[in-house]
């Protein structure tokens, strides 16, 4: 079976500078894959190229065995669903209307939904726990609730791959865990491949099966969590002192920031 995503020698130039170069990796089917790295390392650019939001000019991206260049936006939309960090909300759509829009790649010319589409929308809202919000407007919801609406919309697309851009960035602690648990549930119970950009190393360590560490547009590390969450590697990439130990919750590494007053007493734990 083909890999979910194969990226080969990917590059991207923006305003004359090379934002990404020689990026090659793959994401396996049904994997929970997290992309980490400092600001400006090219994480968002990489995500936007994989999702087809930006045109591919250097390198090759293959989604489920087919090149991204060979697929129409509609065909791609049936395979990949994207959950952005922020969504503009100038128009007063209700939750159910937004979730139903996820059916777009499966609808006919006029875009009218049938009873089957409504069922899927309700299923998606049940999975994300927002059924009670169906008639409410987006603007009336909290950040965490709005996030779940867009995840429900993505589920409605019936994708094989779910791609999220920093989903926990603006969320309360409880919503952060809730979203990550939801992703795990989607991966395990619904066989989705999850690809996520995250700035939270510890969350990434607890949920991801494999990590991709980007630095200045190049791959600094790719592999199992234990291989990538290595204090020497991270200190080099993030350019600050870090302490890496073991989480009491299980076999996960845990990354600590180190305030300056602790520096003379630092003991690196490998």
């Amino acid at each position, binding site marked *: 079976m083909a890999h979910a995503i194969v990226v080969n020698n990917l590059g991207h130039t923006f305003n004359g500078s090379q934002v990404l170069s020689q990026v090659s990796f793959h994401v396996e089917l049904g994997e929970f894959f997290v992309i980490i790295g400092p600001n400006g390392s090219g994480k968002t650019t990489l995500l*936007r190229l994989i*999702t*087809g*939001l930006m045109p591919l000019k250097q390198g090759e991206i293959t989604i489920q065995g087919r090149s991204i260049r060979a697929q*129409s*936006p*509609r*065909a*791609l*939309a*049936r395979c*990949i*669903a*994207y959950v*952005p960090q922020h*969504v*503009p909300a*100038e*128009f*007063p*759509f*209700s939750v*159910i*209307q*937004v979730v139903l*829009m*996820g059916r*777009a*790649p499966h*609808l006919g*010319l*006029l*875009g*009218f*939904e049938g009873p089957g589409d*409504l069922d899927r929308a*309700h299923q998606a809202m049940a999975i994300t726990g927002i059924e009670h919000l*169906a*008639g*409410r407007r987006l603007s009336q919801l909290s950040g965490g609730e709005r996030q779940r609406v867009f995840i429900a919309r993505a589920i409605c*697309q019936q994708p094989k791959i779910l791609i999220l851009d920093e989903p926990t960035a603006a969320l309360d602690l409880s919503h952060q865990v809730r979203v990550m648990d939801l992703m795990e549930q989607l991966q395990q119970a619904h066989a989705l491949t999850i690809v996520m950009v995250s700035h939270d190393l510890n969350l990434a360590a607890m949920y991801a099966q494999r990590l991709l560490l980007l630095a200045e547009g190049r791959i600094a590390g790719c592999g199992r969590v234990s291989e990538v969450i290595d204090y020497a590697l991270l200190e080099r990439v993030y350019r600050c002192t870090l302490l890496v130990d073991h989480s009491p919750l299980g076999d996960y590494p845990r990354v600590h920031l180190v305030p300056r007053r602790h520096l003379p007493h630092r003991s690196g734990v490998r």
Partner: protein
Amino acid sequence: MTGPEPAVGSRLVASSLILSLILAGSLYWGLAAGSAGGGFGAVIKTLGSAADDTNMLKSIIWQIRLPRVLLAALVGATLSLGGLVFQALLRNPLAEPYILGISGGSAIGAIIGILLGLARFPGVWLTAFGGSLATLAVLLLMAAGRNLLEGNTLLLSGVMVNAFCAAVIMFLVSMAQDSRLHTIIFWLMGDLGSVTLRQVGILAATLLPCFGVIHLMTHRMNLISLGRDMARSMGVNIERTSLLLLVITSLMVSATVSHCGLVGFVGLVIPHLLRLVLGPDHRILAPASVLGGGSFMVVCDVLARTLPEQGEIPAGVITALIGAPAFIYLLRRSQR
């Protein structure tokens, strides 16, 4: 609101039915009202009477008022639908069909036509339409190379074009002589004027296919409302869709404006008001804008013809007098 809303199909049928009745009522009133008299039952009576050429009221109703009323409906429908499309394209519920400056180009063309002494139709119409095409070309050139919907590129280009056209218009007006000045001012204020059934027919033949194409794209307009990224990730070919919508809407607004000048506020107030009442789903709003905008314009035209004791005031004055306070109300309501 608790619980899911009723299906789109039934809401579409219900709103279209109600607005069709309103439109029919407005058209009837448009035929019945006027300075030559009439009254409520007059229209029906003329249908029943013999085909008698000496019956002045009958010929006034069917040969003068009918084309005028139909023109008003077409103008209102086009401007409202155009406003709706621009609001979706620019993701701004307060956008309107003149925001991109194409109407400015049309005005310059019209003024030049009037100054040259051309007849209203086809002369001035042609120069006006030519002006708007030129402006559309300039707009596309300015926004080309960058993504059409990226940031505020399109909007800013439109503002610049509008400002430039306004300056040229003022210059041309300052050069105009007395008699033509009056014609120019009336055109600028939006004036339906006198029109034959044949001219209305030609206009309808160009506008109705545009309505059709736009209605086929209403679901995509919903998706675009969520943003460029979201729309593309759900399978919309953003570049093609927005270019097609922009060109078709600009052409249909230009064709209308070239006929009767800059009728203001219809394209802003009607779609916005309908959105407040019917919700943001463009599959329902598009036909509603056509029917509602048509009704509104017919009513404004009736008022323009019947309110003054002698002659008539430009229809654009009525739409502004009703539209401006309505717009302020909508603006304050949206800020709550």
